[in-house]
């Protein structure tokens, strides 16, 4: 079970709490987790990745286990702690306040 933490505005959009539990088929990669998230919550399509290019939107970051995974390729395996559910995979809206 993968535990995904969404930013506030995506929780309100998807009508979910802070944490979402996902079952991921096959290897647990950055791309497969996002695929599973969008399959379960279709309203999130286009909010994290571009509809067509599947590129991460510019103000989105991916963090886990104290690491910044934002620039990892979609096929990059997630840390074991995320795969086992011991740690969360965080989707973060980039800091852009004053």
């Amino acid at each position, binding site marked *: 079970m993968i535990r995904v933490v969404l930013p506030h505005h995506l929780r309100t959009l998807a009508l979910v709490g802070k944490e979402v539990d996902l079952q991921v088929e096959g290897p647990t990669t950055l791309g497969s987790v996002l695929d599973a998230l969008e399959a379960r919550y279709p309203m999130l399509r286009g909010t994290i990745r571009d509809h067509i290019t599947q590129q991460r939107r510019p*103000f989105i970051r991916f963090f886990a286990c104290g690491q910044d995974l934002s620039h990892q390729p979609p096929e990059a395996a997630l840390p074991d702690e995320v795969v086992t559910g011991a740690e969360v995979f965080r989707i973060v809206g980039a800091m852009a306040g004053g």
Partner: protein
Amino acid sequence: MNRVRVLVGTRKGAFILTSNAKRKRWNVSGPHFAGWEIYHLNGSPADPNRLYASQSTGWFGQQIQRSNDGGQTWEPVGNKFVYDGVPGTHQWYDGTQHPWEFKRVWRLEPSLTDPDTVYAGVEDAAMFRSTDGGQTWQELPGLRSAKGNLWQPGAGGMCLHTIVLDPSDPKRMFIAISAAGAFRTDDGGETWRPVNSGLKSPYELPDASAEVGHCVHSIAMHPSRPGVLFMQKHWDVMRSDDAGGAWHEVSGNLPSDFGFPIAVHAHEPNTIYVVPIKSDSEHFPPDGKLRVYRSRTGGNEWEALTKGLPQSDCYVNILRSAMAVDSLDSCGVYFGTTGGQVYASADSGDSWAPIVRDLPAVLSVEVQTLP
């Protein structure tokens, strides 16, 4: 008794203001979609409980929300806006060519007859249509063929912000883009042509009378007289009596002919409203006095409407989509400000009072007159 529903889009959410026909006491509902920018929300003339809202942020992009109960509940529908074919390029601020990139939906205009058909005006400028209640969107690419390579963004972006549907001819529509100008289709959106003859932009364009490139801010029409259009341009208030074939200036005695919105009285096709703004460099009312100007002669002769509006130290702006009328008798007029006030007049503009004073900056105001 009739009711009025005012749909307000702001920088930080949507608000729905309701009242009875007296328009004295108001109920305020919201914020809906708190924290998101709501560029526009609008109701279907064919089913007033069907509403559409454009919801976006720079972080998470575009959403379209739909309500079937007058805004009590909402559901996200389709947010995939993909330009038809290879998008190509348009002019950038410095005159170089720049790729077309989708940014947001500025305008949602439901069909006059079908609640499931709705048009979307987007930035970078293009027109999309949905015929399934907003689930899927298809571009009307003929519009960008109307010299799109010469269009350029205004300060707010290259946005398609105005969509006017002709009630007498379902195949005729007018749209306006900053900074490209006004365009008309007579075949339901397949083909478009610029309708900018008579517009002059000597400070903004190398050719002041160019076929495209004018910064049109908004266009209004009275449904009983669809061939007559009124336009608030960057500078100049304009009028066309032949469906955009030719425009002539009707700024007359306005203290400034710069401004953003323009509206037509619900029952008097020759009565129009603008809110003069000092200049393109100073986006606030002249002399710090918030004045709506009304012409009962279709332009040229204007009177200031000030009763109930601040007449000193007022430095808000009124954005292009932030003024609308109801169709009660007498006609109600509404506008929202960047300071978060929504003002209403229940007597055609003679007197005004704020419905709310402290919303986030108001981006759009639409009004539904309900049975």
